[in-house]
């Protein structure tokens, strides 16, 4: 893995995954690294099986995507007292069942872990430098953010 694609601080680890990753193994590793946290919240987003989508592609723009994710992690850490934060986001072509994004947040109190994970997901969804398209029977189609995604973002002020 290229150094550009991995950042680790005392608290946060942010990765842009260019090939499939194993979310269960990531979660197990994260949990093992955070025995001091009372609560750990994880969010896993995956390509839905059975919805007619044959493939999903996420594009990233190397000069901006990972730096943007790192900045997001920094802001989340500033807003909530998390003891650990992991953000992994895929780029490339995925098939149903593949993991797209994983966020793990460990905190002393569960509300902080929930909020940090929720905040990170809302921002990854509609304010990070990714472009998404889906392949169904009709071919490829670019996906733009839904109005709900912007409403979700506005919850954070």
């Amino acid at each position: 893995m290229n150094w550009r694609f991995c950042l680790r601080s005392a608290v946060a680890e942010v990765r842009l995954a260019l090939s499939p990753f194993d979310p269960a193994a990531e979660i197990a590793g994260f949990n093992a690294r955070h025995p001091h946290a009372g609560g750990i919240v994880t969010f896993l987003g995956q390509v839905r099986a059975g919805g007619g989508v044959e493939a999903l592609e996420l594009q990233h723009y190397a000069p901006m995507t990972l730096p943007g994710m790192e900045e997001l992690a920094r802001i989340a850490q500033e807003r909530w007292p998390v003891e650990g934060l992991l953000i992994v986001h895929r780029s490339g072509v995925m098939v149903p069942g593949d993991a797209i994004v994983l966020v793990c947040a460990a905190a002393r109190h569960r509300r902080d872990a929930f909020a940090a994970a929720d905040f990170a997901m809302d921002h990854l969804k509609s304010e990070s430098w990714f472009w998404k398209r889906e392949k169904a029977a009709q071919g490829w189609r670019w996906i733009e953010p839904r109005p709900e995604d912007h409403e979700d973002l506005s919850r954070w002020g």
Partner: protein
Amino acid sequence: MARLVFMGRLEDVAGMGEMAVQAGPVEQVLAGLDPALAVELLGEKVRMALNGKLLTDMGGVVLVEGDELAFLPPVSGG
């Protein structure tokens, strides 16, 4: 030479992900493109980044040798 980068659906419109162009004022670079593409690139929702930094205003921007100007349509991750 400088480089234009087209992300997301703009890649489909351009028919390519990047394009080498002569350095010079951005207005002049865009004037040299297929007008249908230029119109899309100037769309209200398209943002631009010069060498990885968002531009707040393209007025007066001049591409120099080695510059990369990216056109960024609405994002959608997760």
